[in-house]
């Protein structure tokens, strides 16, 4: 009987609530010119990196829209853009989510992530009058071949540049004997062996060996982008082999690699976004400014300068780079001569004097 009363109470409360908010439904206060839909991959908006950045770029471009309540991000005024986000909970949802935006009269539909390529290729082919943009890939067929559609913008990054800058930090600290144990071994934990991941690792390895020719670079893959324990396992195995820098290139999964580094008292590098807060062991992050690319793509539509095909983002347009994060284990900041050397490398890459490889060099 008591349960019955409780349930009844709950129903009554809920009905009152529902009735109460029926009257306070929010009204749309502007007439948006451009409607932009963003579909995240399965990492979700709260991945502290890739999807979060894309939503940030959309929020920056949007003056109104539900993005403000979805990602908990602040929207600022500016372009007359309405931005909406849908998180894909499973890979099953890529095609329906992209299709929904396309059917609802959106001007630009953005797919976030390499693994969404065949899905966005399928949908973009069906809706030639809607513009699409894909971060980290192409509108492709099932075999991941570029369909070269005239309504698809490919937003690609030179991840090897960002990877090189954190790799240089590792190499320089090893050479200066300022690493935790000076084992001269460093590691990289990749998600799945796909081009955007391997670009990062290629630059990391190249620059570490450039700065410290004696360094040994361990490369491992978790074969996952979401489950933290898997990356933790790969990182721990590398730490067991003496690695004292762990570069995570595995999205949400990689947060486990950062934690493993923290527990083993070695250093780690974040990826895509500034991951300073993910773990105290993160001394720097390799940046991939997805927000810049997404914002640029929206701008292109707003200014009617949409260009299909490859759009490469790099140090040239300030879309790659690095960020110094937590202090070293003795509490000191990264030595200024090391920072100067890294900045010099960045300048050399930007000027073309140095070119990090896109594919992981074999030793």
């Amino acid at each position: 009987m008591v349960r019955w009363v409780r349930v009844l109470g709950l129903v009554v409360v809920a009905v009152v609530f529902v009735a109460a908010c029926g009257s306070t439904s929010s009204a749309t206060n502007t007439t948006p010119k451009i409607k932009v839909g963003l579909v995240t991959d399965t990492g979700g908006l709260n991945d502290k990196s890739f999807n979060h950045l894309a939503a940030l770029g959309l929020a920056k471009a949007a003056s109104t829209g539900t993005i403000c309540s979805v990602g908990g991000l602040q929207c600022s005024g500016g372009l007359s853009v309405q931005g909406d986000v849908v998180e894909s909970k499973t890979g099953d949802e890529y095609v329906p989510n992209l299709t929904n935006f396309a059917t609802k009269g959106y001007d630009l539909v953005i797919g976030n992530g390499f693994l969404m390529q065949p899905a966005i290729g399928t949908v973009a082919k069906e809706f030639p009058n809607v513009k699409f943009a894909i971060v980290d890939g192409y509108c492709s067929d099932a075999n991941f071949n570029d369909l070269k559609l005239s309504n698809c913008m490919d937003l690609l990054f030179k991840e090897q540049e960002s990877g090189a800058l954190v790799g240089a930090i590792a190499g320089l600290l090893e050479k200066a004997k300022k690493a935790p144990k000076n084992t001269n071994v460093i590691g990289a934990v990749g998600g799945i062996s796909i081009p955007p991941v391997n670009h990062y690792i290629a630059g990391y390895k190249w620059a570490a060996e450039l700065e410290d020719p004696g360094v040994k670079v361990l490369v491992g893959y978790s074969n996952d982008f979401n489950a933290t324990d898997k990356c933790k396992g790969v990182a721990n195995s590398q730490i067991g082999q003496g690695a004292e820098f762990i570069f995570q290139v595995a999205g949400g999964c990689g947060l486990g690699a950062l934690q493993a580094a923290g527990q083993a008292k070695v250093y780690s590098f974040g990826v895509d976004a500034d991951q300073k807060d993910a773990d105290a062991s993160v001394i720097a992050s390799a940046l991939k400014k997805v927000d810049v690319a997404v914002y640029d793509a929206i701008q292109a539509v707003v200014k009617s300068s949409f260009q299909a095909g490859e759009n490469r983002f790099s140090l040239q347009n300030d879309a790659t780079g690095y960020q110094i994060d937590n202090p070293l284990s003795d509490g000191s900041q990264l030595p200024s001569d090391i920072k100067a050397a890294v900045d010099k490398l960045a300048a050399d890459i930007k000027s073309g004097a140095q070119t990090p490889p896109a594919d992981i060099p074999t030793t």
Partner: protein
Amino acid sequence: MGTGAVVARPRPRLPGIVRLARGLAMPVGSVLFAFVAGGVIVFVTGANPLGAYQGLLCGGAGLACAQGENSALQISNSLVYAIPLVMCGVAVALPFRAGLFNIGAEGQLLAGTITATAIGVHFAAWPAVILLPVVLVGGAVAGALWAGIAGVLKATTGAHEVVTTIMLNYAAQWLLRFLIIGGPLQPPGEFSASAPIGGNARLPTFLPNDSSVIVFGLPATVYRVHTGLIIAVLAAAVFAILLWRTSLGYEIRALGQSQKAARYAGVSVRRTVIVTMLIAGAFAGLAGAAQIAGVDHQMTDKYFSDTTGFDAIAVALLGLGSAVGIVLAALLFGALHSGGAVMQSDAGISSNLVLVLQALILFSIAANFLGAILRQIPGLGRRPSAPAPTAPGAALVTEASTALPEEGEPAT
């Protein structure tokens, strides 16, 4: 607890309306409870529950769409999600009836996808009349064998099927990862996906596969609902006939009611356990094969995070282990899956609310407090000692816990 006498007796005859009310009270009540509680959660987080449910209704059933969604497309999407849920729901419900808890529908589904993909890629040149049935049957056989491992272990060593099927899920997941990341099913290139299956291995969609044909204002190819829907409905029908119209079905139900009584009645417990798991696995494997042949056409990383086999447990429980119930529950869960995304884009409410709703429905069934409420209502109340053939959710837990010690005894 049920006895042999109860098993042998025909189902209790009650006035139709009372039976219907009893049968529907728990699932409908659980869903209502979940939606009310979910509404409260949405409200507490500062959003509008009506807007949220409008988005959900639009995305799930194509009704009350406010922002230009295409209703037909939403229904098509919901059906696409529901198809594997029906078949996996059967794969969970059949062992339920035998007192077995099949947590491994996901692994069995993956075994089906792997086999169907391998066949569909390797024998792409075969004509469709041969290839398509081979793909589907191959998937079903693979699922059956995968589940059969757990069945044989249960029957011979007494290893609990919950543990073995969960472990077999991991085995299937990592086998799939291996196969498409550096393994034999990965085509050259750095992509975590298999090659697509041949055109002859694909289940046709209901609408022509031609984007120049316009249906309900959209290219026909956006409606992905495929003939796997017919297979799913047939699977549910086969399940019902098997359970209620065959001697094997009788043995399965007898086993579920009481293992001891079943044994005295001459049922071979070992054989029935193995056969039940084989058939269940076949349904899940068929789901995987239909998913490959009907929608995905290739294995991708999406199967790393696939939850169909786990959602199917909820579907089977909510459907009260009956064929009609499973179909209805699968439609609901398919609609929730499809509606979540629209809810997020329209109302700005995280589609994770859908996961909360699913969990609340399950919670409500597991807690079975609606049963407790019903007992308080004169007329609808039933004697506590009465058998509960339509409430596997409650019955199963007790069966599962009592089945284990009996397993040590010699089976006939």
